[in-house]
């Protein structure tokens, strides 16, 4: 059964970096337990969109956000929002895997520890669970005290996924998670994403339109900060409604 509950709703979302408008009046919904793919050429505002959702945009100087973003009916730029709790709920996987310079175990326990979990047995349980869910457990279970930096690129990216899962998030944002990976590692990450969909809501920004067609349930096409089209992936890739979408996915520009 597919639950059509909307987890994330943006209404007339605008973002400016200084004088440059990066997102123009974006209104869309992300439904529970779906993978929403976001495609579009460089500088179309895809990554900005993700950064707004868990408020990492706060780190960028001179940004301005207007419009409404509701996550489970809660306004995330509201006055009494707990930003740290929001970021635990809305996990983020970056384009380049960035393990913190510490052991595999400490990387995954980092989030839970900062959230106040101190008990060793509890942390061990979380680490094992998270690594299993990210399909990395078998490869690293004997060397959890090794540096996370010694893993291969694909393993590092799954480590980052496990690290995010350790937060017990509800939504996971993927910002071009496979841009630096070889096809085999990409396959493993995609496999993990399809499995994660059962328990989480995923938003996947990707430069690889084929990847969106492989894993996304619905796909949104961004161009120059505007949302051109959002539709079921299959429909969008077979009968795009907008000429620009058709040009982009058939590789005529971008």
């Amino acid at each position: 059964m597919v639950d059509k509950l909307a987890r994330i709703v943006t209404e007339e979302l605008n973002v400016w970096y200084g004088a440059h408008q990066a997102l123009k009046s974006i209104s869309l919904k992300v439904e529970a337990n779906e993978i929403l793919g976001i495609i579009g050429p460089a500088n179309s505002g895809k990554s900005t969109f993700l950064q707004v959702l868990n408020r990492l945009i706060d780190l960028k100087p001179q940004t301005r956000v207007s419009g409404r973003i509701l996550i489970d009916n809660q306004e995330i730029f509201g006055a009494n929002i707990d930003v740290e709790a929001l970021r635990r709920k809305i996990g983020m996987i970056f384009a380049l895997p960035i393990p913190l310079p510490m052991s595999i175990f400490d990387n995954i326990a980092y989030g839970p520890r900062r959230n106040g979990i101190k008990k060793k047995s509890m942390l061990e349980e979380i680490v094992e669970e998270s690594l299993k869910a990210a399909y990395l457990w078998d490869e690293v279970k004997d060397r959890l005290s090794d540096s996370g930096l010694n893993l291969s690129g694909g393993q590092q990216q799954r480590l980052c996924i496990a690290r995010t899962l350790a937060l017990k998030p509800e939504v996971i944002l993927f910002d071009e998670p496979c841009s630096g990976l070889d096809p085999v590692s990409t396959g493993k990450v995609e496999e993990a994403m399809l499995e994660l969909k059962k328990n989480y809501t995923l938003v996947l920004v990707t430069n690889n339109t084929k990847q969106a067609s492989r894993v996304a349930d619905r796909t949104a096409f961004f161009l120059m900060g505007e949302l051109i089209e959002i539709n079921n992936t299959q429909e969008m890739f077979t009968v795009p409604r907008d000429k620009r979408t058709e040009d982009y996915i058939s590789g005529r520009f971008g």
Partner: protein
Amino acid sequence: MKKLSPKITQKIVFSLLSLATLLAMVPVVLIVLIIIKNGLGAINWEFLTTAPRNGMREGGILPAIVGTFCLVTGAVVFAVPVGVFAAIYLNEYAKKNWLTRLIRLAIINLAGVSSVVYGLFGLGLFVIFLKFGASILAGAMTLAIMNLPVIITATREALANVPQSFREVSLSLGASKWQTIWHVVLPNAIPGILTGIILEISRAAGETAPILFTVAAFYLPGFPTSVFDQVMALPMHLYAISTQIPNIGLDVRYGTALVLLGVVLGVNSVVIIIRARLRRRQKW
């Protein structure tokens, strides 16, 4: 004129570069060699473990060694926390605007202020106004203030060298800003901070002017019992025996210089070893 071939240009540039390196090394090597050659004869057990005798012409220099240790320790204890916290504030919290740029400029300029000015400042503030008298406390604080710009600048650079992506990752995992600084930024900045501390130790141990009015005693054969006591210090002692005591053996002066060199190298090497260990762990 015919242009030189790239290969010849390269050879000329390389020779110039290595010549410059050589020129930079020669004075250092010469200083160390001359001090060792002239001073080694004076170094013996008595020299290192007793107080000066006979108008400082004989005996040892232990009170000055102890005094220098006290001053260096005191200067590190006062300067490191204040300097590191100020650098964290400036680098991680303060908004980048004209005021913080002005503060940064002021701090860099403070590093260039002559050390005798710090000595007079310490005399005015600590010795007279705060009534510490000429004491370890006043001297160590004066040295600390003199070294704050170095510590702040080194720490800021170390913090700025920690990749921004680590901060983003930490925050994205629900850590607060302070947790991010404490658990991710600072541990990776420590080697750079230690470099600042090494520079501070060397300067605090070697400077004469800042301690001249604030702590250093001409001749004080005992040991300090509280932070309000005066002490002898190696650079001051060297200055005193070289200019104020007639008919003193050359080897005593060079011996004192050698001990000063040894103390600085000894303390620094401890910090350098710690830094090397941390660096081996650190890679990204």
